[in-house]
């Protein structure tokens, strides 16, 4: 009983503790502070990298963008407009300032503000990524859970082998190849679904499919493995000792624990999905950031490239942070465990 009389970190977690620790000592506050700090540092690294990108390009980026035949005066004018003649620290400061005021510069090619270009293209990409993520989770979690239960210790050796092999093969196929195959089957041969643009609801089907099939296979695999592991745990035996129904044991006791571990890897997957939109958008002529960044790289429209890299990077960072937070909500131990 001595353990209860001294206030420990454990006691601090309760919100209604009599001798409640001050609010900033609460584990979740510390957790949030650490996460926020980590996010901030990562964002700074990202911003600096995107700023540095244009300076890492060998030669004069403006000359490169406008071509060797452009008049020197025009090149010089653009350089000045971009502030490329200022000393580096000044440029860096201006860049940061611009970010805070929502000024991402001007496109070298179209002369439009980059913010407008990004704002115009972002929703299509976001819709694609979110739908694909939801689709893969909606398929992978039930599938992985079911297979985990079917292949738990002493069960379903053949099922396990068949599933593992299939999922490895499916996961290896890159999303743009799945896209090409889908275009061929459903667009060219069957003619059922549109293969370009995002004008209609049907137009979403193929891009979302090609983006989500691979991640769904990987995620289902992870969920299955975690499920099999968790079903061996002592607390599952406790749940069985309580004589709960099998469904309750699997869904309420095993699944949350399996998902906790699956989430970390799932987060990486989601991050790669954000980037995966680039290729898929180019297969389906999707009017999003992915097709824009590629054409901008080819046109050497660096301010646009810079901004889109920044947006993608931020997307990945936000996803990772969201994963960490949901991890903490699902498994409170992770708040304390992690440094």
């Amino acid at each position, binding site marked *: 009983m001595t353990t209860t009389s001294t206030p420990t970190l454990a006691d601090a977690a309760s919100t209604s503790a009599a001798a409640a620790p001050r609010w900033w000592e609460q584990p979740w506050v510390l957790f949030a502070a650490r996460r926020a700090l980590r996010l901030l540092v990562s964002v700074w690294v990202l911003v600096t990298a995107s700023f540095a990108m244009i300076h890492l390009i060998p030669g004069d980026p403006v000359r490169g963008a406008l071509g060797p035949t452009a008049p020197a005066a025009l090149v010089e004018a653009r350089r000045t407009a971009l502030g490329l003649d200022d000393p580096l620290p000044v440029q860096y400061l201006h860049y940061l300032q611009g970010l805070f005021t929502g000024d991402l510069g001007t496109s070298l090619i179209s002369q439009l503000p980059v913010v407008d270009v990004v704002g115009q293209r972002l929703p299509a990409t976001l819709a694609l990524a979110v739908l694909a993520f939801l689709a893969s989770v909606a398929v992978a979690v039930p599938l992985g859970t079911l297979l985990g239960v079917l292949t738990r210790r002493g069960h379903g050796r053949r099922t396990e082998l068949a599933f593992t092999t299939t999922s490895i093969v499916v996961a*290896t196929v890159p999303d743009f190849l799945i896209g090409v195959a889908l275009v061929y089957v459903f667009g060219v041969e069957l003619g059922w679904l549109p293969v370009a643009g995002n004008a209609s609801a049907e137009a979403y089907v193929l891009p979302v499919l090609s983006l989500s099939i691979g991640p769904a296979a990987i995620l289902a695999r992870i969920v299955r493995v975690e499920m099999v592991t968790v079903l061996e745990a002592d607390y599952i035996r406790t749940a069985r000792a309580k004589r709960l129904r099998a469904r309750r044991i699997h869904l309420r006791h095993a699944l949350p624990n399996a998902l906790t571990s699956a989430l970390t890897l799932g987060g990486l997957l989601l991050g790669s999905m954000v980037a995966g939109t680039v290729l898929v958008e180019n297969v389906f002529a999707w009017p999003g950031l992915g097709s824009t960044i590629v054409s901008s790289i080819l046109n050497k429209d660096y301010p646009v490239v810079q901004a889109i890299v920044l947006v993608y990077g931020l997307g990945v960072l936000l996803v990772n942070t969201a994963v960490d937070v949901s991890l903490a909500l699902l498994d409170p131990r992770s708040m304390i465990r992690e440094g």
Partner: protein
Amino acid sequence: MASDHGRARRWRGVLTTPVGLTAAVLLVAVAVLTVLGPVLWGTSADAVDTRDVLATPSPEHWAGTDNLGRDILARTLVATRLSMVLAVCAITVAVAAGLLLGAAPYLLGGRAGRLVSAAVNVAVAFPGLLLALFFAVVFGVGATGAVMAVGLAGAPVFARLTQTLVAQVAGRDYVSAARVAGVGRLRILLRHVLPNIAEPLVVNATIGAGGALLAFSGLSFLGLGVQSPAYDWGRLLYDGISAIYVNPAAALAPGLAVLLAGLAFNLFGESVAKGFGVPVLVGAPELRSRGRAAAAAADAPTGTDGDPDEAADDVVLEVRDLEVVFPTATGTVRPVRGVSFDVRRGEAVGVVGESGSGKSLTALAVSRLVSEDGTVRAGRLRFLDQDLTAPDSPALRRMLGTSLAMVFQDPMTSFNPTRRIGRQLAEVATEHQGLGRAEALGRAVDRLDSVRIPDAGRRARQYPHEFSGGMRQRAMIGMGLMGTPSLVVADEPTTALDVTVQQQVLDLLAEIRAADDVALVLISHDVTVVAEVCDRVLVMYAGRIVEDVSAAGLATRAQHPYTRALVAAVPHMDTDLDQPLATIPGRPVDPAEVPAGCAYAARCPLADARCRAEDPPLVAAVDGSRVACWHAGEPLPDPVVRTAEDRTGLDALDADELVEAP
């Protein structure tokens, strides 16, 4: 030599799996095409035929032609070389950069090392394609830029891998020894660490090469990789997809090529990783091992032999000829081989024995909790007049859920870490007693209070990790009290706890028993604990009960040599602590290799030829005690348990041959 043999065998193992073999064949095909492709089809791939542009597949052009009338199939085959060369270059860049970054923390040490590893951690979080795009901008559009882009984008993953591997190897004794001897870090890295991590690195590089191939074709497909007039698979795909409505084969042929080559690398790498890492369990048909089958026939418990009297009215649990069988890779094992006993209302029965004696499995079996790969058989298994060998039913679950309480060994792992304690208790009431959430939680708080969890209302809202071990074990007992238990089965409930907390838990169990006439089955390897808490003690050895004796008579009236050895091995207040503690020589029987005859014979000072041939039945005496021994009660040759006076024989034994009794 031995390891070379092992390696050859593992390679054979990899190549004889269907997946490994397919992947290997594909890899060889890719390698052959890389060398011969341009030689064989170089000219036809470049032959322009303006009269036959964008043709669909035909006997002359199996995959049709492109917009200059060039043969797609020939171009796809020729493109193998460039695709492979670029992928290999990229993976080389990735591994080299990854090695540098991964070894840097070890070489630099201190703050600089931490900075590098932090940078790697940040970079790993970004998807490879995003990094590749970044580097593609920096290095410019084209094959060289793409090699650098794909390579550097892959570097963080290899850096992380190297870092982990280096840390593992650097922690080994011989590396520490080298460091103490003053060998420099760089030298250690080159001489000791790198050779040891080469194998996993190569395997991962193989998988990575597949990834690089796919990533490269991705970049080329975007128009950022190989530029015209050169072409790799990605570039062909890029050209092909714009004409997919005219000639789908123009996109499908290079697509298929990328896919097959990528799969070949991936599957080969995975097979090798699996073959060299974890041994694969083969689903062999269940062969019954002959020796064991014979032993099983010999020691089959004979029905009524030594059985307790016909079950009386107040019997809560009735067990007859209980067996638990598990399948193994080579046959089956029977860790519990015919156990019979009764537990009466309010009675406390202890089960003692060494690990592997089958005592925990017996507890699980009478609670219907043996994991599903095990088979439980029993002549009779009844709890409160319900047949526990019957198939699962809601009624049976409700009865067990409310009348049979379990307490497990490790309170740290026996609660679900993601659910609040109160909810975990309340679940019993919502599941079996039809209570609402709030009511059930109220009862949970009440029960936590009754097992003396202070401030139970607040504690109920906490997670298991916020409880100490002793509190968790009490909460576990509280969980059993959610219903109205007639029997508590406690499997080593105090083993994982501090000595000071052990007594609290035992007191609590005794209290519950006294208050409601609840029966208790206490599994323990600790004779002292059992003697203190229980009325009667079952001594188990090698899956059988060898003695059933009253707790009071344990010290003085035990008949079986094993029981007497267990009792003698317990240190007392007057034990001379300058002498080594008493032990039982020999090791416990492996359940997979139970000998014929009495299982204890090999360790028994009284054993004779009959003991080694015939397993003694469990025979009941007039006073109700039971014993399974041909020499029950015979005086033991002195000393039974060897102590300091007789150490000569023991010194020869290995330390692990001495099984310490508590």
